[in-house]
């Protein structure tokens, strides 16, 4: 009976244990290492595809992201868009409400913006149009946010599926509207809205193309930080997110908090739609959100829901994306090359969280056990 057991003297080679505590310095160090590693891997991938010296490739990336004034501003603009969506998602995720419907909320906000611009832009004064644009976009996003919240708090439906499905609904509505707004007809696109009179376009501020976007997004970022950290609402959101039982125990109205928070979350994502349509593209299509509603989820989580960290994370992601677009054209790759690079970087960044949470140790060889 005992004999089979003497051979069983093997041990696992690695041991994985949860870290009790990790200093900020160390955790950011690990993330930095992940970024460097991902850049090295990207370099090898690019080298394998293009046969170029990776150094040139990285110069190409930097050039693509900030090489020219216009490129720098595109990078800033894209960063702002990603940032405001991540900021919008923050309260929802902090409440552990898995809102993966930012894509649809942004799209609905963009659609509302386009509608106001098309129907009222040419006639009303621009200030009023813009005011209506903001109101309409926030309302549209809010509507897309409150629906899953209502069904969640009333019937306990699964918000992940619900918000995901609403993305497709939004997509279909936009497709439907494009049929009406097509210009020129037959093109199946809306084209630039109010190209002549710029009705409902966000004007320049301080001589900057994206000045207003910059101000609005930064205000939202600071505002969200303050809201989450210092307000009673922010506190309630945190309690509900951590434990609904505790929330009920102290008399927090969980349903109310879920509804209110998703109105805020959806509203900000809707506003992001206005920033895109009124502030930059001046058109609407099914790809107006362009996957940023999903990328923003990663931004929010990687930033541990700190809006200021989100600035850095979204800037970095957009930087790499824009750079990748540049090298793709420079070296004649197709546009998916930039997705590959973003994918590699995200893989490393998300993977680094594992090493921040866990410690991997080599087990010391046990001589007595193996000596038999």
């Amino acid at each position, binding site marked *: 009976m005992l004999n089979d057991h003497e051979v*069983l003297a093997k041990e696992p080679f690695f041991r994985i244990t949860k870290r*009790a505590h990790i200093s900020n310095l160390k955790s950011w160090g690990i993330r930095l290492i992940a970024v460097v590693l991902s850049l090295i891997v990207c370099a090898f991938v690019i080298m394998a595809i293009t046969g170029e010296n990776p150094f040139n490739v990285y110069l190409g990336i930097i050039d693509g992201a900030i090489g020219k004034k216009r490129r720098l501003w595109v990078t800033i603009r894209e960063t702002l868009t990603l940032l405001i969506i991540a900021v919008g998602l923050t309260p929802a995720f902090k409440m552990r409400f898995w809102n993966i419907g930012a894509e649809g909320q942004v799209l609905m906000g963009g659609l509302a913006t386009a509608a106001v611009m098309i129907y009222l832009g040419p006639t009303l004064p621009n200030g009023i149009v813009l005011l209506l644009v903001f109101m309409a976009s926030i309302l549209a996003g809010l509507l897309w946010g409150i629906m899953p919240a209502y069904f969640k708090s009333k019937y306990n439906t699964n918000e992940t599926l619900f918000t995901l499905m609403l993305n497709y609904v939004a997509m279909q509505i936009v497709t439907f509207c494009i049929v009406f707004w097509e210009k020129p007809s037959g093109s199946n696109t809306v084209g630039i809205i109010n190209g002549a009179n710029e009705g409902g376009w966000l004007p320049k501020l301080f001589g900057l193309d994206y000045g207003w976007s910059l101000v609005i997004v930064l205000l939202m970022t600071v505002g969200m930080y303050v809201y989450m950290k210092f307000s009673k*609402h922010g506190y309630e959101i945190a309690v509900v997110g*951590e434990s609904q039982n505790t929330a009920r125990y102290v008399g927090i109205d969980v349903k109310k908090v879920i509804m209110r928070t998703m109105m805020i979350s959806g509203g900000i994502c809707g506003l992001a739609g206005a920033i895109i349509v009124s502030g930059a593209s001046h058109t609407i299509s099914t790809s107006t959100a362009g996957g940023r509603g999903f990328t923003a989820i990663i931004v929010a989580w990687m930033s541990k829901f700190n809006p200021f960290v989100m600035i850095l994370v979204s800037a970095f992601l957009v930087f790499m994306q824009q750079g990748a677009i540049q090298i793709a054209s420079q070296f004649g790759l197709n546009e998916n090359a930039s997705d590959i690079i973003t994918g590699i970087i995200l893989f490393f960044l998300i993977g680094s969280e594992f090493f921040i949470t866990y410690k991997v140790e080599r087990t010391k060889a046990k001589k007595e056990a193996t000596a038999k």
Partner: protein
Amino acid sequence: MDSEVAIRLQNVTKRFGDIIANDNVNLLVKKGEILSILGENGSGKTTLMNMLSGIYFPDHGDITVHGKKVTIRSPKDAFALGIGMIHQHFKLIDVLTAAENIILGLPGNESLDMKSIVAEINELVAKYGFDLDPEQKIYDMSVSQKQTVEIVKVLYRGAEILILDEPTAVLTPQETSKLFDVLRNMRKAGKSIIIITHKLNEVMELSDRVTVLRKGQYIGSVETSDASIDLLTEMMVGQKIDLEIDRTEPLPFVGRIEVKNITCRNRDGVAILKDVSFTSSAGEILGIAGIAGSGQKELLEAIAGLQEIESGEILYHSPEGETVTISDMKAADIRDLKISLAFVPEDRLGMGLVGSMDLTDNIMLRSYNEGKHFFANRKNPRKLATRIVEKLSVVTPSVDTPVRKLSGGNVQKILLGREIASSPNVLMVAYPVRGLDINSSYMIYNLLGDQKQKGASVICVGEDLDVLMALCDRIVVLSGGELTGIVDARTISKEAIGLLMTSSKKGGAQHAE
């Protein structure tokens, strides 16, 4: 001499991250003896035994079974060595019968001969004096019956060395003494038994020898015949302590919470409280006793406005003489009416506190909504947190530490400290000392005593009858959701409470109705 040694552990160490759960522990188990492993919560008893049963693998140290050095890497290895463990949490499949659970996972032929298996099981049951019907489904069983299934399962697989992890924690006094009889029968049959416990009187009653652990370290082993409760306490805690709870006389009876014929159902529609009535008085500690899951939790939650009531009502008689019906109020309404009702729930980090938040934010839970400001005021909660930390000597790096990082005793001090900070008229506590070390436990008993003397109506759900009988003035006994007695804690016997705890239950089933 060595032939009668069943198990020997030498210098066994096990770490979890920075925690050393077992630090160079030695242990000796002889053939045909009952060995108690005694230690406070977190002293590493379960971890040590899990290394014998193949759940964990030691970082270093040697395990010898029947004189041979062995490596135990899985529960299967442990079984092959004749070691079987009955865990604190049972691992049974509800929809199967006892017999089916017992043979589950055993290698065997394609076709099962259930008849002969049941016969074999019945033989075991008769041999050791168990009380078990092999063909009963698990979901029809009481906790003690489930435990019996686990024990028989281990025996059926041929275990010679049985390890029981705190087996009496879930049992009534009667069930406990039945279990002890069975264990003594096993000892007679030559089996070695290791029983983990932190109850001293059980150690004295049952075991031949005791091994004491403290903070992961091996303190020593003594023959029970040479030991005394005082000696064992000192070994366990590391210092001499007074085990008396000083209980003052209750204040004259003044009704505070009046529970009238309440019935509650859980989500599956099962009646969890049935027509329960009693009145708590100001200036007393009213104990609530019962087997785990007899409706204690629901009763407190019903009073706190967290559990829907199907029928009946709950009245609050304020010290000013007003009467308020609180049974149709939610927790928020009770708070807004400024009825100072404090509640320390069983699930401290899942209901009473938020684990990831720091001390200040947790203290703030009760008061954050005061005032009309949009922003929360953290100044006062911070002051209060500092005061609680000082007054109750909470061990914490600062008031900015997440409560999750504190030990069980300190978590409980924070929770209780917050709840009594409002000088409540009613203080409800559920299992207030579960998981706490002896020193913290006595501090909590004293705090409850203070509240009683200040005139609060203290309602305390407990699991250790000895403690309830020493701490409370009156004890309400629940059995399967029914109130089976309200007794005087000073005069009642433990056996009498034990009988009330099981009295009106049909066939011992937990899920009657």
